[in-house]
């Protein structure tokens, strides 16, 4: 008789993902307490079904899968509709069209944002980024956060969101173009006089 196979995932590995998951949840639900509760529920659910982790995806992607459902439940209870099946990926192309003229040029010339190091030290930039991410449609936000925040591979994101890789690239393209336009308006076009510390 064979000894039981070593589980592919252990409790320590699951709890190591906690801060990453909180970060992911925080950018979708506004309140930190809610994000932490949802992650707590996710970790409990994961520990209870740790044997069902088949290793087809990374532990992180598996956990995000559970967390996504917790977040949707939360939104549903709060009366907010969510397109969990990424159905809103269909309108992506049209929306991106709005940034371009018929000849393929930008309607509005993108601005030169300047030195990346300086931008990345600006609190105001991150605050604007957070607002902009929260303004993304649900499936677009999920794809984007899984990719650029959590570093998941595109194939895993497609599988998780049940979409084709082409649709996944469309969602990511749309997310990034929306975010750059939003940042240009909210952060670049906003108060640029660097009154740091004036933000309440």
């Amino acid at each position: 008789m064979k000894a039981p196979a070593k589980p592919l995932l252990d409790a320590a590995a699951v709890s190591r993902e906690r801060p990453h998951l909180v970060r992911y949840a925080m950018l979708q639900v506004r309140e930190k307490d809610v994000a932490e509760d949802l992650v707590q529920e996710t970790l409990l659910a994961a520990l209870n079904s740790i044997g069902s982790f088949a290793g087809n995806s990374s532990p992180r992607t598996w956990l995000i899968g559970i967390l996504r459902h917790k977040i949707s439940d939360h939104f549903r209870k709060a009366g907010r509709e969510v397109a969990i099946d990424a159905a809103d990926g269909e309108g992506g192309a049209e929306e991106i069209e709005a940034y371009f003229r018929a000849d393929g040029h930008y309607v509005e010339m993108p601005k030169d944002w300047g030195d990346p190091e300086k931008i990345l030290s600006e609190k105001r930039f991150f605050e604007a980024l957070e607002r902009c991410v929260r303004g993304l449609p649900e499936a677009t936000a999920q794809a984007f956060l899984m990719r650029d925040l959590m570093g998941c591979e595109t194939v895993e994101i497609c599988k998780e969101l049940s979409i084709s890789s082409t649709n996944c690239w469309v969602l990511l393209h749309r997310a990034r173009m929306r975010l750059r336009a939003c940042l240009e308006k909210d952060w670049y076009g906003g108060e640029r006089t660097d009154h740091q510390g004036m933000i309440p």
Partner: protein
Amino acid sequence: MLSCHEASRLISEGLDRKLRPGERVVLRFHVIICDACNRVEKQLKLLRRAMSEFTDRHNPPGPRSY
């Protein structure tokens, strides 16, 4: 000649998959001569960096609520 719209798609996809040599060549050529796409490319790369630095910068370690 690649349009800015197409270029923006390749810039974004280049962050998610390895572009084919042909795609890389047309994109590089376009970005060299086009200020708009040059800026957008820098912005999308910055966006990725910003996301990876999100918590560290945005929520500096401090007293924890748990």
